[in-house]
């Protein structure tokens, strides 16, 4: 009996813990987008922001889809558009498409090795980057330079293993099982 009661009404700390675990991916995504805006003077900082957003959305949609629901992804995409001076809503659409694609291929990707997931992410990110380039070229009515496209694809592919190493540690927490 007592076990049932504990399950129904967890203590405040436990609920706080669960809530923080639930909110962590979204908070980390938004916070990271803002941190990349700091004037750090890194080369390719502009390319890093969409790459970071794509890596976050791919990883969490793959391993813990419930903690990065579609409205949060759309809002993050909107934030990215506003920070980046991209056309309004463009990255919201692209991140949602990325999430949809990830969720659709989730069952096949989860049992695979990390290397394969990485390759799939690189392919998805390249496709999203190419789409962003095409959409912006059409909206600008001019062919935009291709060098940033390549830089962003490389940034996304290079960033993913580092981010994944960090996220996997967060994902393997004791209270994470029920959220998976």
């Amino acid at each position, binding site marked *: 009996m007592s076990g049932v009661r504990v399950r129904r009404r967890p203590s405040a700390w436990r609920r706080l813990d669960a809530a923080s675990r639930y909110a962590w991916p979204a908070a980390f995504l938004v916070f990271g987008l803002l941190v990349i805006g700091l004037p750090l003077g890194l080369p390719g900082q502009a390319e890093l922001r969409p790459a970071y957003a794509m890596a976050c959305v791919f990883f969490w949609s793959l391993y813990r889809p419930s903690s990065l629901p579609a*409205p949060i992804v759309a809002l993050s995409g909107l934030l990215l558009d506003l920070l980046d001076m991209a*056309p309004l809503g463009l990255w919201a659409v692209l991140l949602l498409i990325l999430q949809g694609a990830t969720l659709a291929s989730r069952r096949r990707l989860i049992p695979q090795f990390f290397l394969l997931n990485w390759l799939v992410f690189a392919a998805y990110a390249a496709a999203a980057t190419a789409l962003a380039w095409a959409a912006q070229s059409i909206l600008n009515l001019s062919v935009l330079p291709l060098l940033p496209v390549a830089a962003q694809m490389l940034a996304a592919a290079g960033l993913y293993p580092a981010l994944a190493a960090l996220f996997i540690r967060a994902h393997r927490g004791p209270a994470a099982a029920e959220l998976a």
Partner: protein
Amino acid sequence: MIRLSVPFRQALSRLTLPVMLMFSLGLVLIGRADQSLAGHLRSGLDDLLAPAYQLVAGPVQTVEHGGGVIGNLFDLEGENEMLRAENAKLLQWQAVALALEAQNDALKASLDYVPQPTPKFFTGDVVADLGGVYARSVLVALPPTGLADQSIVGAIAMDGRGVAGRVVEAGSRSARVLLITDLNSRVPVAIGAAGAPALMAGTNGPDPALLYWAPGQPPAEGAAVLTSAVGGAFPPGLPVGIVHYNAQNDPVVLPLADLDALRLLRLFAYASNEPVLTPIPAAKPGPAAHSPLAAAQRTNH
């Protein structure tokens, strides 16, 4: 919490993604239809973010500028040597500048030259580097006072050495400066002593291109590039950069402003009571009545 049946909840969770996708696509359309919406949202967000960025950017710059007091002790000797050499060189230039100033004054006196009034300017910290892949812009935190009476959209941003860009969006606490390297940046310029007209166009790379110069007279390597008053967007004579021929033998401008590491920007707001930069046809009482330039012209008459 509302209790819903399991199938209904599953259907709902499956529907969120398509619904959000439709919503975002709608947003793209709305953003295309109403271009000012994105601007409003962006300046609102910038106003929210600017104080936070300002708080964090200070320490970041301190770290970037070296290891503080202890770190500076180690290279005092070398730095002193360098500063002495630099000081000697600057003193020479000071002499040159004083001579030129005297000559300039004499020439102006003989021409009955009326100096242009200095525009109002604000100095702001560059707190965030918010360029996109195809957009080069920085966020400037504005001082809290002195902006109540006018908008600074269109103000010209200069760092210590040259023109860096223009303000494209401004809220009450922040302004977004579109840099001259941005793809959408077009600055009418005058090249060299003769002031040959050309257009400086941003290319998304570090050095903007020079377009539309007179075909017979290509810009000379090393010539100074100044802003030109053609089109009325810029006042004449602000330093922009230096002509250089790149590997493809196309003339580009090497900007004087240190665009990769902007720290402080001065925003020159040319208010409506400043002299009119371009002549505007006088009789246009209808729609032109709202334009500040037209208003300025009326006061000048």
